[in-house]
């Protein structure tokens, strides 16, 4: 197989995807702008995209400050969830005891919407950044832990036998077989976990905060500054997308061998 040809192909397809995504986005915005121009709703009901852009460019430092606050809470919470979730998953897969205790608990608690716990964390940890971190971490923990457990368990039993027949230690089996087998599943948990962390951080800010995009949205809603709500949403949207693409990029770097990442021209989407 020619490496150059394959590279060329994937570059081309990525490029085409980006172009069509941008085009459909632009079309949507134009329709929105046109609709606002034609029906002229009051600006507190529906601002035009141009209003939102003007707002954003008028106060870049304001939006940057609040966005950084929110994203930092989300990312720190996410990092905590990643470490705790992976360690918990490894413990659960290796220990019957942890499986029957922690895993059952995790699956149980997962059915509670984490946002409903936000007021509790505000009571416990105050209205500062700590409560936001905790809510973000808790929200991200479950998808990460659960898909890591599934991934670690889905290692090919024959591959485990192979490693054991070569007298691999438990730790070697973990690093050479189980973790690589789990990688794709962990990444799908990580993607969900990251967006959940962002939701968690925003939810915390909704409940009680003096900073962050969630805070801006809630305050602006109270004063009917709808343009500001939309501008905050736009910043959130863009941040979320950037984070998602960063994770996808890391995934491509770390597991280029996985079926989902091969990007060969031989496989067609069905």
């Amino acid at each position: 197989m020619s490496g150059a040809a394959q590279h060329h192909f994937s570059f081309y397809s990525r490029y085409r995807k980006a172009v069509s995504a941008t085009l459909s986005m632009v079309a949507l915005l134009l329709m929105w702008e046109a609709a606002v121009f034609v029906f002229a709703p009051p600006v507190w009901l529906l601002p035009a995209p141009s209003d939102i852009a003007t707002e954003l460019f008028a106060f870049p430092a304001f939006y940057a400050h609040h966005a950084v606050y929110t994203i930092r809470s989300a990312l720190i919470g996410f990092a905590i969830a990643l470490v705790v979730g992976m360690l918990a998953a490894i413990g659960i897969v290796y220990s019957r005891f942890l499986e029957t205790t922690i895993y059952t608990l995790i699956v149980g608690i997962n059915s509670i919407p984490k946002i409903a716990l936000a007021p509790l964390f505000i009571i416990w940890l105050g209205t500062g950044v700590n409560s936001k971190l905790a809510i973000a971490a808790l929200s991200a923990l479950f998808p990460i832990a659960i898909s890591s457990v599934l991934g670690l368990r889905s290692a090919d039993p024959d591959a485990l036998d192979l490693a054991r027949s070569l007298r691999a230690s438990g730790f070697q089996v973990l690093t050479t077989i189980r973790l690589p087998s789990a990688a794709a599943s962990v990444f799908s948990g990580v993607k969900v976990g990251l967006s959940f962390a962002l939701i968690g951080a925003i939810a915390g800010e909704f409940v009680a905060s003096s900073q962050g995009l969630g805070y801006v949205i809630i305050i602006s809603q109270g004063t009917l500054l709808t343009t500001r709500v939309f501008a905050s949403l736009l910043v959130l949207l863009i941040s979320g997308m950037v984070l998602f693409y960063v994770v996808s990029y890391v995934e491509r770097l770390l597991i280029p061998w996985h079926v989902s990442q091969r990007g060969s021209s031989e496989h067609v989407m069905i």
Partner: protein
Amino acid sequence: MAQKTSSQRGLHPASDRPITRDYVCVSDVSKTYQTPRNETIEALSHVSLTLTTGEFLSVVGPSGCGKSTLLKCIAGLSAPTSGLITVNGRPVKEPPPKMGIVFQRDILLDWLNIVDNVLLPIRYTRGHNPETARQSAMRLLDTIGLAGFEHNHPWELSGGMRQRVAICRSLLLEPDLLLMDEPFGALDALTRDELNLVLQRIWLRDEKSVLFITHSIQEAVFLSDRVVVMSPGPGRILEMLEIDLPRPRELEIRETPEFGRYSSHIRALLERHGAFRR
């Protein structure tokens, strides 16, 4: 004629190993599986056999008769319900050292390229020079016809090529015992013939003890010093058959009347015990 019989090989004078003429000794082994629904499946029933040092022994039997179970017990991957297995004189409690396995599926790791797959065994054992190991991996890939594919990934190889890589991996650390569980079961007849020849060549050169599991009577007779015939499950040993054909064997040997007699004997035996359901 370069006739090489099992007895000559077993008494190899240059051997400095402890004089255990039987490299593997399976005595009165039974294995019962417990299913999650609390049924029991008897997979092996009172199996006894020995694998002489340097011997090529095949096990043939119908599907589900417990061949893989037997291999896993010998490999220390699964414990027999009763009976004793020794490898190189020591009871098997965990996978013994100096053993290589080729499974029915190639089990190449997608996250490693071909040469790193072959090098997998040195990740688990200390005291190997990575450079010399890499050289022997390259040499093995070369002898088996895969030179130039070192840096490819497993999914870029055909089924036959993948199985060759698995064979190289099992040979990397020069095991004394090679366990093969229907390694060519999924291959087409041509590739299978070729790999039979390759395997025979490697075995003639390296004097390993080989336990070879197969569905194919022809393959068993072609490769083996002795063939163990097993009954449909629960597996019992029906007969142990010496294959007294000269080595090295060419594929044409399969057309000879002696070869035909061995094959039809085994086939008749399996038929009498209801291996071929109609």
